[in-house]
């Protein structure tokens, strides 16, 4: 089963939330940000090149122009490979764990898998971000030494930053699976 909804992030940008039910014990949420727009690339490139051309007319050194081209290319590659995240996926598998994947615009994927044994809870938290208070979803990890302590807070959907309505939906689904997991582990 699949469904898709269009949402907005905290700044009002568009987001799309795909939900896939593979089975009752396996759920996937995928948040897609809009792709990088041609307009912004063109604007940035034009600005850099015009500035370089301005400098060139002043100094009459053609090194500046080639340097500007290289800087633009490298900057674009770096931006696509390390900064721009296209999809963020949350895969929850009952009795196995929670997997977070972020796919960059260049196709690079970075994945983190957290075993269910280490997950203490999934919560919605508040944070001060720039000049506003935002909500975010995070995973609390158990402290291996002290059973009731929390060793780490892992934020989910860190780059997409969806609004609260989306977070609540994901949160409920996570809690259902976690409750099932807890019931299973307490009654062997």
């Amino acid at each position, binding site marked *: 089963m699949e469904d898709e909804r269009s949402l907005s992030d905290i700044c009002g940008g568009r987001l799309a939330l795909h939900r896939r039910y593979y089975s*009752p014990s396996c759920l996937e949420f995928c948040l897609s940000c809009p792709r990088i727009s041609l307009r912004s690339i063109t604007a940035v490139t034009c600005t850099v090149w015009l500035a370089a051309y301005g400098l060139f007319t002043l100094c009459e050194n053609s090194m500046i122009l080639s340097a500007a081209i290289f800087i633009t290319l490298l900057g674009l590659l770096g931006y696509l490979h390390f900064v721009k995240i296209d999809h963020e996926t949350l895969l929850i598998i009952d009795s196995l764990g929670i997997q977070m994947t972020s796919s960059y615009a260049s196709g690079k994927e970075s994945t983190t898998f957290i075993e269910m044994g280490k997950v203490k809870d999934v919560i919605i938290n508040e944070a001060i971000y720039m000049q506003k208070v935002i909500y975010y979803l995070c995973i609390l990890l158990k402290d291996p030494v002290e059973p009731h302590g929390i060793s780490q807070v892992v934020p989910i959907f860190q780059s997409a930053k969806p609004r609260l309505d989306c977070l609540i939906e994901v949160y409920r689904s996570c809690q*259902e699976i976690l409750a099932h997991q807890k019931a299973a582990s307490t009654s*062997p």
Partner: protein
Amino acid sequence: MPRLLQLLWAQLSGPGMVLKAFFPTCCASADSGLLVGRWVPEQSSAVVLAVVHFPFIPVQVKELLAQVQQASQVGVAVLGTWCHRRQEPEESLGHFLEGLGTLFSHEPWLQLCRERGSKSWNCKATRRQGPTPLAPACEDQVMLIFYDQRKVLLSRLHPPAALPERQAGDATASAGGLAAVFDTVARSEVLFQSDRFDEGPVRLTHWQSEGVEASILVELAKRAAGPVCLLLACLLSLVSAASACRVFRPWPLSFIWSKLSTCEQLRHRLDQLTLVVSAHRAEGPAQLMRKANTLVSVLLDMALGLLLLSWLHRKDRFAHLAEALVPVADRVAEELQHLLQWLMGAPAGLKMNRALDQVLGRFFLYHIHLWISYIHLMSPFIEHILWHLGLSACLGLTVALSILSDIISLLTFHIYCFYVYGARLYSLKIHGLSSLWRLFRGKKWNVLRQRVDSCSYDLDQVWRAGIPPRTGEGCPNWHQAALFIGTLLFTILIFLLPTTALYYLVFTLLRLLVVTVQGLVHLLVDLINSLPLYSLGLRLCRPYRLAAGVKFRVLEHEAGRPLRLLMQINPLPFSHVVRTYRLPSCGCHPKHSWGSLCRKLFFGELIYPWRQRGDKQD
């Protein structure tokens, strides 16, 4: 609606844990047979290790499993049946497979079945409720997880889980979660040793190595490695004994040894070589990795050194270098002379104290004159010295770089001297000024209490200094004189300060330049010394060997069939590789923070290059 259905499903299925069956991808095309593996009850997961094919004799299978269990300390058992339907479903085979469940009893009994198409898999796990085989069976929810047996076998999880104690019997699972799966596969390596050409009593399908190609060279190298290592270890122990000899211990020599970075680098290299050729077998993978890293870094270092040496020897570059070195030193001295003459005039339009300026300038000029004559005395021998020092590059690039750093500090000795003189004068003035400033404000430093106290100076007495104090008052005569002289001195010092400060500033900048160059050379040496090249190469070519964890991919599945996941190895990021396997280096971290450096510079305390010996104080 889907959520409702899901809730209903969850209610119906009860709070049983989902059964996870880890199945090796290499067995997916195997013929029908029995599933052999380990059952981990805490996580209700079944790790399938191999498939036993028909025909077999049950007793022989049990014997084989007992052997494996004894060798690997893993509770290997028959977990269920595997059925691969290539043609039309055969009814007889199904009954036969069910019958096997009574022969090899296991709870729960897995029944894995693959239809003709590659996508339709079926898996049932039955648990018998009662002791009798005819008791009603209940079925568990099953999840199929495919894994690559070879990669899981060879990979090493980071951070390493606590090593399970190898006790007798079946007591194993101390590692939790997926680490248990990795552990199981790694420890049942015995099972994978037979390859497909073995004609054993039991036919198995599992991951098989392609076979090891025997090469006579490799065999010879293996045979020779032991004696060679022993010989090298003897030689190294001789060298270290010689270096610890008492001849080198007396005061001036030991002082020089502690100051030269070449000696330090040589000592480090000796330690590295000792570690590599030591006869002790490496305990655990971490130490093995460290040995390999050290070996690769030493080899690379030596290769780079030899490259440098060959480059220097070609076209007789030593002579060119020596010819160029003396003019460069001359040039530097000349520039310094110009600088001093500029300082002795009116530098940047500043009006200095002429007398002090001349004195300082002449002193430094004389020093440079001495230095130039020293260099010219040395110049005939410089080529030979360079040639002999260049030979040390075959010990490695790091040694050559350390020698370069030492040469730089020797050749810029005059700058160092100027800096020291300037700094001493400047700090003297600063300290004098700070104490006189206290006197100026009517305070004084109380030595006993380690604090600043106020002190009453009778100002009237000072103004009428010529008049003798009235008797009987116990008037502090000494205080008046102190205040008078102190004020005078303070004025003199404050007027002389700009001249000294200018000299100090210029020579400090020169000194900082030299220190920065030396610091860069040391950073390069440290980089070569501490970079874990073997681990990085392993991460680059065999990413699965260093695993940070796993990642799962959901394979497409039909409704009503069990969920199928593909487990892949998540390789360790490069930054983590470097952080985990960093080799210990000589340890020259910047000793000063920026703040303390600026403070030291302001108060005229001496700064040294970053490399400082930790154990010896000078």
